[in-house]
């Protein structure tokens, strides 16, 4: 019932682990498949190892989750054995996520990660938490998005997915730019810039002071972005941002998403997070006599 085809690849259900959550090791990612996700996205990988920001790097409450991990990762050379390990532990589709400081470096990392057994390449040009180091995210500029998409496309041997930011005021135009530069799909959205202050100590909670908002508060923003992008492009969308229930997932499909990125729901529902969403989606579909997600994709338009 939830079987989904995305760029000619079969997913047992449309839920994919969003990049950044629990994606440090191959075994950790394989466990995500075991507990119900249809596919996984690795944590974003860079050319060199990165320690990320000091703690606290994440915090949450009932309404939102906030993080600024600072893109910690072991670097592409050390990440490749983890991806190989992941492939040995699961048949589920793997989305490799990369980021870099320059367009050229995106090309280098793309070429290297494609030597591993990934099915798709997600290009993270939208992390809001490393501005001090890398400047404004590339995802705010149509020119930068075009340049990076073109370079990555020439180096990648798998379909390329560009991950966009809700902090850009014109996300649909940016998605169009990515599409015209050759992107195969869009992930929308990354986190929205935000912060949290501890009023007793009178200080920001995160060591990076500002971070990215995800969780339930991000959901309506993500839904609107996906809705706008679906109108603007023909390539498929991984709708990501604040999905914690089956009803959220169905709404995201109705806005036009093909796959559903789920991350912070791990904070809200722990081990049951993926199976809860898929069970609730199936329950709704049975009640409404919907036999496939294709029937309801984009019906909100």
């Amino acid at each position, binding site marked *: 019932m939830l079987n989904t085809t995305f760029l000619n690849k079969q997913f047992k259900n449309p839920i994919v682990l969003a990049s950044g959550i629990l994606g440090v090791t191959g075994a950790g990612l394989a466990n995500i498949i075991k507990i119900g996700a249809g596919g996984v996205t690795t944590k974003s990988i860079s050319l060199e190892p990165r*320690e990320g920001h000091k703690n606290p790097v994440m915090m949450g409450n009932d309404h939102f989750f906030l993080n600024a991990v600072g893109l910690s990762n072991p670097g592409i050379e050390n990440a490749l054995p983890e991806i190989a390990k992941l492939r040995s532990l699961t048949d589920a589709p793997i989305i490799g996520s990369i980021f870099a400081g320059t367009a050229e470096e995106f090309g280098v990392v793309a070429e290297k990660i494609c030597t591993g057994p990934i099915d798709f390449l997600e290009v993270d040009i939208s992390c809001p938490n490393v501005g001090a180091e890398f400047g404004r995210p590339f995802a705010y500029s149509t020119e930068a998005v075009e340049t990076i998409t073109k370079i990555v496309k020439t180096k990648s041997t798998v379909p390329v997915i560009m991950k966009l930011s809700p902090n850009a005021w014109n996300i649909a135009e940016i998605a169009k730019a990515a599409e015209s530069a050759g992107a195969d799909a869009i992930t929308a959205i990354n986190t929205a810039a935000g912060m949290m202050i501890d009023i007793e100590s009178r200080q920001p909670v995160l060591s990076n002071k500002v971070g990215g908002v995800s969780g339930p508060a991000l959901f309506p923003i993500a839904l609107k972005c996906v809705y706008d992008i679906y109108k603007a492009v023909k390539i498929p969308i991984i709708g990501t941002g604040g999905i914690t229930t089956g009803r959220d997932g169905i709404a995201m499909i109705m806005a036009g998403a093909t796959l559903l990125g789920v991350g912070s729901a791990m904070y809200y529902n722990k081990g049951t997070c993926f199976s809860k969403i898929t069970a609730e989606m199936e329950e709704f579909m049975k009640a409404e006599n919907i036999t496939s997600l294709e029937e309801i994709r984009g019906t909100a338009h």
Partner: protein
Amino acid sequence: MQPFTIKISKIIDENTSIKTFYFDYNLKSQPGQFVMLWIPDVDQKPFSISFDDGKTFGLTVFKRGPLTEKLFELNLGDRVGITGPFGTSYSIKPDYHYYMVAGGYGAAPLGNLAERINGAKIDFIVGARSHDLLLFEDRLKKIPNLNLHITTDDGSAGTKGRVTDVLEKLLENQNDDKRILVTCGPELMQTAVLALANKYDTKCEVSVERHMKCGFGVCGQCVVDDLGICTCMDGPVMSRTIANQIFELGKYHRDKTGNIIKF
């Protein structure tokens, strides 16, 4: 899950590099669990809970980096941010004979456990490099039904040698049908205890320490091979069955980037 800011109510010098910080707060923790301690503008790290009587809890801290150095400068009434308690805890089975094996500041959660099991017979084996680094000797001596066995690397107190040598002798010489080994301390010591639990087919619980960022199962930094489970939520306390399935136990752990570091 936002940090709550609380005041230090008591500070005890355990030895030259270890202090216990007490907070008058009902943490509702179980022995073996941990909290994240945050000092704004410095850092936030996990610390195991060494005392909790429902009114006050304590953290026993070894001075080893910027966060703990800053903590050691704080005074009574100064505030820190706490999140937690997090993680799994040791079993409480008053009808069992406990063999507690603590190395170094591994005595922190086990001392807490020993004080909170009413009625169980306890053999508590605590090891340290030398007598001056030994933790909780006085606290442990006050617990009824507890036999204290001390080992030191240099022989300055108790038996010179390893905690596991003492443990094996006890296991060989004592006859009891309900035994449980619980351990906390350096990983290679814990894997040696686990090996003895396997050899004598005894219940066992170990406490696995991995680099943690969040403490609540989201960052993925403390995931262990090949099970892929988080040490912060499915641990730190793990049963013998689970521990035996952790391929990396005693072999390697990971740094802040996620890279493998061999023991």
